[in-house]
């Protein structure tokens, strides 16, 4: 640390040059921070990518309006649609209305379209074989201390049974997990068939349809085709991607990671050339000074460390500023546009990774000039050779 002022002094020597070098480092790491955040959002959220492969068809009048089951086979026949399932909001509660959670009556193929909900195969089979079977997320099971084999009575807030009973009983046969989105583990699913047979009203209707499509790029065309099925009927539909933005992004940039790595490769390559050149020039100008330090007894390694410390310092100063700007930008963007923009906040691991990168680039950039400083012979430096 007692050498810090030496490093400062050499950086302050050409203020304009240091400023512009810093600026390029700031820019590079601002870009890195932003791209890393986007990349992180995509690579972490396989969910968003899956969402891009799913369309949701609701009643044009709103989510609370139901659709006829007859649409199922029609939608299934639309070109580009690989699979269709449907869900209905049940609105039951457990014991007390304030114990609110999402529970849905779903088509038997529901879990085929949501592979991110991981259900042990045996439990999935048990669910398929049990008329009154239900599956809940792990978080929900923890919340109510439910285990497989329990009988779960739900009070119906909307749909009484034909028998007049307001309580529906389900057999808990499975517990699913969603490792990337823990928030998805707070739901309960059961057979629409059971619901449809037993409900006092609303029979033959579903809440909304979910379609799986092969190519996100076709989502707009397929959505129009699905909506055309019900045009001018009493149940016009609205079909949307579950995450329109993600669909756009993913279909345009098939491999976000590759793109990000390529851009960053180019950016850092340029950065290394630029700062490397600057450092080389800076060291060349300071050969006499390095010679003086050596005359006074600074070791070869000491001079090497000084030059390396200088370039690492430039990278750290600029890099930390760039990352701070990126972090601020990401939180601004998220505050303004919310979750629709796929970006991860700049967290500890992103910081660690970027600081490691700064040190690495700093060392790489400083290596050649530092070696030159180290090898410098005092008598040659003093004689200006």
């Amino acid at each position, binding site marked *: 640390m*007692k050498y810090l002022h030496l490093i400062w002094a050499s950086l302050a020597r050409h203020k304009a040059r240091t400023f512009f070098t810093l600026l390029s480092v700031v820019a590079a790491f601002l870009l890195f921070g932003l791209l890393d955040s986007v990349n992180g959002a995509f690579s972490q959220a396989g969910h968003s990518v899956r969402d891009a492969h799913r369309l949701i068809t609701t009643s044009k009048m709103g989510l609370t309006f139901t659709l006829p089951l007859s649409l199922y086979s029609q939608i299934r026949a639309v070109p580009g649609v690989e699979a269709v399932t449907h869900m209905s909001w049940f609105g039951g509660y457990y014991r007390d209305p304030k114990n609110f959670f999402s529970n849905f009556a779903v088509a038997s193929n529901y879990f085929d379209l949501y592979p991110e909900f991981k259900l042990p195969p045996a439990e999935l089979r048990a669910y398929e074989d049990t008329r009154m079977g239900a599956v809940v997320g792990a978080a929900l099971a923890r919340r109510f201390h439910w285990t497989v084999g329990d009988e779960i009575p739900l009070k119906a807030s909307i749909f009484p049974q034909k028998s007049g009973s307001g309580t529906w009983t389900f057999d808990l046969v499975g517990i699913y997990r969603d490792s990337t989105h823990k928030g998805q583990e707070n739901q309960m699913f059961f057979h629409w068939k059971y619901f449809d047979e037993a409900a006092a009203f609303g029979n033959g209707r579903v809440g909304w349809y979910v379609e799986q499509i092969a190519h996100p790029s076709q989502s707009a065309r397929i959505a129009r085709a699905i909506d055309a099925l019900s045009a001018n009927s009493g149940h016009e539909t609205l079909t949307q991607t579950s995450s329109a933005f993600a669909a756009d992004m993913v279909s345009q940039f098939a491999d976000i990671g590759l793109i990000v790595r390529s851009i960053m490769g180019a950016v850092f390559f340029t950065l290394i050339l630029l700062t490397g050149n600057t450092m080389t020039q800076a060291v060349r100008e300071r050969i006499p000074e390095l010679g003086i330090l050596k005359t006074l007894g600074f070791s070869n390694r000491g001079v090497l460390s000084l030059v390396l410390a200088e370039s690492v310092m430039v990278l750290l100063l600029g890099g930390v500023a760039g990352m701070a700007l990126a972090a601020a930008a990401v939180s601004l963007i998220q505050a303004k546009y919310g979750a629709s923009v796929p970006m991860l906040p700049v967290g500890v691991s992103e910081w660690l990774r970027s600081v490691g990168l700064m040190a690495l680039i700093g060392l790489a950039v400083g290596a050649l000039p530092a070696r030159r400083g180290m090898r410098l012979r005092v008598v040659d430096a003093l004689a200006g050779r």
Partner: protein
Amino acid sequence: MSALIEIRNLSKVYERGRQRIEVLHHIDLEVAQGDFVALMGPSGSGKTTLLNLIGGLDSPTDGKIAVAGKRIDRLGQGQLARWRAGHVGFVFQFYNLLPMLSAQRNVELPLLLTKLPGARRRQNAAVALQLVGLADRATHKPGELSGGQQQRVAIARAIVSDPTLLVCDEPTGDLDRQSATDVLTLLQQLNRDHGKTIVMVTHDPKAAEYASHILHLDKGTLVESAEAAA
């Protein structure tokens, strides 16, 4: 007085490709502890080369150099650097200060290599600056000082770690008469009052008069030693 510097059969050869330039030939020399020696001679005679060998900036091709009993001709680069830091102070024609550092910081430089705490380093540097009469210029950068003042800062830097030996290569070569006199008076004072042994290369006979001995180097050989006119 015992010999501080003892040189026996010293040779220095530079090889440039096939060319072999023998700059110093079999030099024998003793410099007593507390002596002030002026080294004179024509340009290219090898004065700087000899001074660099004495100061441990370079290693001889052949022969022996001992300073205060320590053989420095056999030391490796790292060992030499450490030895220089503890035993020699350097003064050059062009001052060789770091332009971005204040006078105080320049003088402090050699102390960075010691284990002294920061406060102690600053204090010692201040004392050295005071000794050369520049206490009031501590915060000035070299560019804000005259040539004579810069050279005195360089002298403060050379003595700050209290070495026994000062080697000076044309310390007045770039100075006007008055500044040169100041610098030479200062060197003489360091020699007399502080017991520093000084070897000084100079072209200027007037400068050589401040020394107690004058050595003449010609084509790499010491030709004759003359007592300085006292």
